[in-house]
């Protein structure tokens, strides 16, 4: 069996007297996010590796700017600390593979003064296997799986990329998503295509999408059954972000819970229709900066139009949230298009050679 053949773990070990001593060891060394951690024992880490069929020294990827290698063993140690069960680990590993793609610009995302967190969106059958809840309280400790998967991303950044506040992390203002920022899509509660399918992953495969994201901005519109009016509220929130934060276009996500989603779906709108409408409506004139105290940088281009999306493809439309309430959320990107959202299939070898013959 795998266990007998698997190479031994190579991490340095520490013997502590009890659970409390383990906490003090980890906190005093700057190895946590400030919350208690699950002590990463050999057995717990090996269970994660066995579930994912990964040897300890398997290379998950190399961070392209600092050339930092990330191994399965080290990632699993951090996943265990975050509270992950073995079945959560493949999702964490795939998210990290996606984060290390050059277009994601992980180093910039995690070292910038413009505080963002890494949002992980889960699609496909794995959501049901891990018990992820895509409905009530989505985006806010809605369930065990998304809570610990999101936390594992951050703990691994702290320990494997030295992304500690005041160290590599130069963020001026963070947001609560830096503890954990993960949601599953409510695929059973919608007729729309899953986000992963919209982004090129075959239907039926599990996948994660990672995005460098600011905090969610909630909207509310319970007073119309016109899809255009509902989506206008989302677009207005995006325009507000352009005026108040960054005017430049990038990957925005919008989360549409069931009450508003049912109205939009009943009118026959697809995710593509939504993205095309939002693309047209979420745009501002550069001169609007003068209305919000930023007149100094309008310069000689007051009539230049800035779109929140470079194209409709750049909008991530996610079905999630509780069944009642005319709410939604806009999740803006970190600094326009400097980073791109990345989607990767779970358990698929992205660099494998095609079969010969």
């Amino acid at each position, binding site marked *: 069996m795998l266990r007998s053949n698997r190479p031994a*773990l190579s*991490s*340095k*070990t*520490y*013997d*502590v*007297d*009890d*659970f409390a*001593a*383990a906490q003090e*060891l*980890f906190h005093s060394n700057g*190895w946590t996010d400030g919350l208690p951690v699950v*002590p*990463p*024992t*050999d057995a717990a*880490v090996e269970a994660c590796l066995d579930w994912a069929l990964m040897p300890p020294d398997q290379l998950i990827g190399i961070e392209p*700017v600092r*050339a*930092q*290698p990330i191994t399965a063993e*080290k990632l699993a*140690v*951090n996943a265990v*600390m975050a509270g992950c069960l073995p079945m959560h680990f493949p999702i964490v590993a795939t998210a990290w593979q996606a984060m290390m793609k050059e277009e994601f*610009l992980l*180093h*910039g*995302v995690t*070292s*910038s*003064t413009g505080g963002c967190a890494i949002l992980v969106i889960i699609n496909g059958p794995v959501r049901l296997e891990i018990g992820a809840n895509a409905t009530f309280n989505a985006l806010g400790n809605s369930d065990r799986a998304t809570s610990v998967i999101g936390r594992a991303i951050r*703990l691994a950044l702290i*320990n*494997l*990329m*030295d992304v500690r506040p005041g160290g590599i992390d*130069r963020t001026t203002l963070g947001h609560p998503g830096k503890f954990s920022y993960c949601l599953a899509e409510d695929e059973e509660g919608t007729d729309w295509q899953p986000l992963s399918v919209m982004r090129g992953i075959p239907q039926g495969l599990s996948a994660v999408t990672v995005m460098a994201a600011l905090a969610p901005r909630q909207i509310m519109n319970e007073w119309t059954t016109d899809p255009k009016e509902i989506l206008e509220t989302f677009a207005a929130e995006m325009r507000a972000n352009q005026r108040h934060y960054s005017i430049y276009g990038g990957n925005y996500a919008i989360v549409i819970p069931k009450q508003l989603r049912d109205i939009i779906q009943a009118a026959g709108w697809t995710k593509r229709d939504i993205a095309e409408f939002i693309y047209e409506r979420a745009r501002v004139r550069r001169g609007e900066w003068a209305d919000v105290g930023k007149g100094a940088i309008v310069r000689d281009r007051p009539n230049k139009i800035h779109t929140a999306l470079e194209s409709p493809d750049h909008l991530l439309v996610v079905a999630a949230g509780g069944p009642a309430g005319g709410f939604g959320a806009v999740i803006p990107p970190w*600094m326009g298009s*400097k980073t791109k959202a990345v989607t990767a299939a779970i358990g698929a070898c992205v660099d494998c050679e095609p079969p010969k013959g």
Partner: protein
Amino acid sequence: MIIRVLDPTHELKAAGVQPAERPLSLKGKTVGFISNGKEGTKGYFAQLERMLREDLGVADVIFRTKSNYSAPADAHIIDEARQWHAVVTGVGD
């Protein structure tokens, strides 16, 4: 009961790099500035240029700006920097 826990950090030492030879004097030399392009760099580098020229006798100061302030300097800037005697870079916000 004793618990044996694993180190969660990368445990890697910083990659060994050979620093460039340090000039003993900047007099008559060429110094390049690689800016991230942010507003805060302008005054800082302007003052630094004055100090280099007036106090240390630097002959030439070359300004270059990265195309993406959050990413490493572009390859053509790195190539050009090989011709300079010293480089000043860093974050200005």
